């Protein structure tokens, strides 16, 4: 295992650390804001973030500083920053910990991003279920405002930074950045057609940046310790920094582990998370949240960085690593995820809205041992007619569990169907009507 020290989880790993403003300041908090505000030009902060190689931690992995640079340069009106705290990707539970245990680290990151892009208002769009998290953030915002880290004329720099916490209300799709904006505007969370991109026409039609919680929490450290330090961690240049991996499923010690990007799946699962929970061997891994394709034990030496996981045919995504032991029914697993996607499809695009329903029905039929061999072709056809044909990336995401389980565990599908065929062979011709 490579030597590493936690960065984002460092404070909260100290016994007795409460995440209060006092604790955060004692741990060196808000030094980055003091160092930068009114002293470093906003454009130089952006340059620093580009140089660090920081990429978005929400799922897509877009370079953060480059995203900021898409904002129109000479725009005079209001600009907005949205912190995407709608952590909803099944398998992912890191942002909740960052917000509930060290909220000021997130707020300082937001303040730095606001300064860099010239936004006076930031909204934290937090998933509605995180009631405790939103209360903790509300309290932290009030503390930071009273201490002069937020509000008008922050630290005497002339910059004004307001942060508001806005709760969602239970819709996975609102983690998609344009659906988030629609939701924040009080509408149904339907993704927008792009272009225009949020950088030019985002919240209320104004230039807007949307960054994930973990992405923003990295900013104080990049400012304090320098972009070169950040770029030296992990697998630079393309996957710099640490990553909080959320391990779930059949391991001994599920939970959040912050490690440098580029450690292998084997190291994460068997060293950090303690290995399998019983003597049943490993069967399947989802490396980056429900939207990522399943991998097999043959992929244990794949490095957890953006490029390596993509090369293995999946994606690093949101950092949610789900581990399944031998004996887990892969058709059942694909169906469970598909039910999730069907439930969460926003309904805007027909291929996804109708296709997700068909996929669930077909999988249910196969799992209930009533399938036919041609159902497998139907599944693939449906998937191919959804992916790439929708407004947002949800369409690509929802087909990943099916296509990847079909790729690696096709015999499991076929075995269920053969049982159905054997059953049908004994039926009278009309008996099928009862089904």
């Amino acid at each position, binding site marked *: 295992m490579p030597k590493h020290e936690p960065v984002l989880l460092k404070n909260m790993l100290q016994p007795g650390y409460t995440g209060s403003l006092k604790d955060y300041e004692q741990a060196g908090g808000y030094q980055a804001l003091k160092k930068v505000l009114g002293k470093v030009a906003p454009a130089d902060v952006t340059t620093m973030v580009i140089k660090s190689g920081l990429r978005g931690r929400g799922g897509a992995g877009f370079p953060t500083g480059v995203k900021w640079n898409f904002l129109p340069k000479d725009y005079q009106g209001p600009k907005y920053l949205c912190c995407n705290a709608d952590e909803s990707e099944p398998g992912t539970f890191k942002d909740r910990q960052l917000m509930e245990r060290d909220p000021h680290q997130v707020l300082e990151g937001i303040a730095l991003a606001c300064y860099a892009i010239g936004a006076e208002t930031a909204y934290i769009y937090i998933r*509605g279920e995180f009631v405790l998290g939103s209360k903790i953030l509300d309290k932290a915002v009030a503390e930071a405002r009273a201490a002069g880290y937020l509000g008008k004329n922050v630290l005497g720099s002339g910059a004004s930074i307001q942060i508001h916490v806005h709760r969602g209300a239970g819709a996975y799709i609102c983690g998609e950045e344009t659906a988030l904006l629609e939701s924040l505007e009080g509408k149904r969370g339907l993704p927008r057609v792009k272009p225009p991109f949020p950088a030019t026409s985002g919240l209320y039609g104004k230039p807007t940046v949307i960054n994930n919680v973990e992405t923003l929490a990295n900013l104080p450290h990049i400012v304090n310790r320098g972009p070169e330090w950040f770029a030296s961690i992990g697998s630079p240049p393309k996957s710099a920094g640490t990553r909080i991996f959320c391990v*779930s499923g059949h391991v001994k010690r599920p*939970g959040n582990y912050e490690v440098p990007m580029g450690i292998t799946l084997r190291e994460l699962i068997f060293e950090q998370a303690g290995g399998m929970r019983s003597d049943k061997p490993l069967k399947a891994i989802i490396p980056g949240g429900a939207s990522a394709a399943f991998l097999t034990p043959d992929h244990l030496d794949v490095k957890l960085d953006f490029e390596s996981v993509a090369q293995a045919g999946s994606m690093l995504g949101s950092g*949610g690593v789900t581990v399944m032991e031998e004996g887990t029914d892969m058709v059942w697993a694909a169906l469970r995820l598909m039910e999730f996607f069907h439930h969460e499809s926003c309904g805007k695009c027909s291929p996804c809205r109708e296709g997700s329903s068909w996929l669930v029905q077909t999988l249910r039929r196969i799992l209930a041992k009533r399938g036919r061999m041609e159902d497998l072709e139907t599944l693939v056809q449906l998937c191919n007619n959804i992916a790439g044909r929708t407004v947002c990336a949800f369409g690509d995401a929802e087909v990943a569990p099916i296509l990847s389980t079909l790729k690696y565990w096709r015999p499991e599908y076929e075995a269920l169907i053969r049982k159905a065929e054997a059953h049908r062979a004994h039926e009278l011709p009309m008996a099928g009507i009862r089904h």
Partner: protein
Amino acid sequence: MLSEKYKDEIADILSRYPVKRSALLPLLYLAQREAGYISEEAMQEIAGLLRLTPPQVYETATFYTMLNLKPVGKFHLQVCKSLMCALVGSDPLIGWLEKKLGIKAGETSKDGLFTLSKVECLGACGTGPMMQINDDYYERLTEEKVDRILADLKRDGTSALKTGPFMWPEPNGAKQ
């Protein structure tokens, strides 16, 4: 009327947004907090407050699963059934809850105390099986723990077994 009872809170909510409609979700939450669900009257009042038409409020309200447009029990038990929780036993747990409460998922107990719902991922995948009861998360559930939670809720209206500020694993391997 919400606007009389929560005048200051509504003013505070409205002050956060340059466009009034953004206050819609917060105001719907306010209505739900007040009555346990969002009535048509409340939606009409909110429409008036935000200068929206009632259908505009309704179209938003019907999109979000956390907004109850019908009354629910005093304690709304929402158990995660997504894959990550299912891997570690959410299905038998839902069965256990159905047995203990004498209702099926989707139903409310006769005394109006408990509504049981199966829901999709609540973002607590490392500490499953788990459920949300009203505003609180309860994680790493077992049958025994569920029994204690239900008894606590009946007796005290709350339970100390709910999760505080989340961190898992806890520092220094405490409570592993």
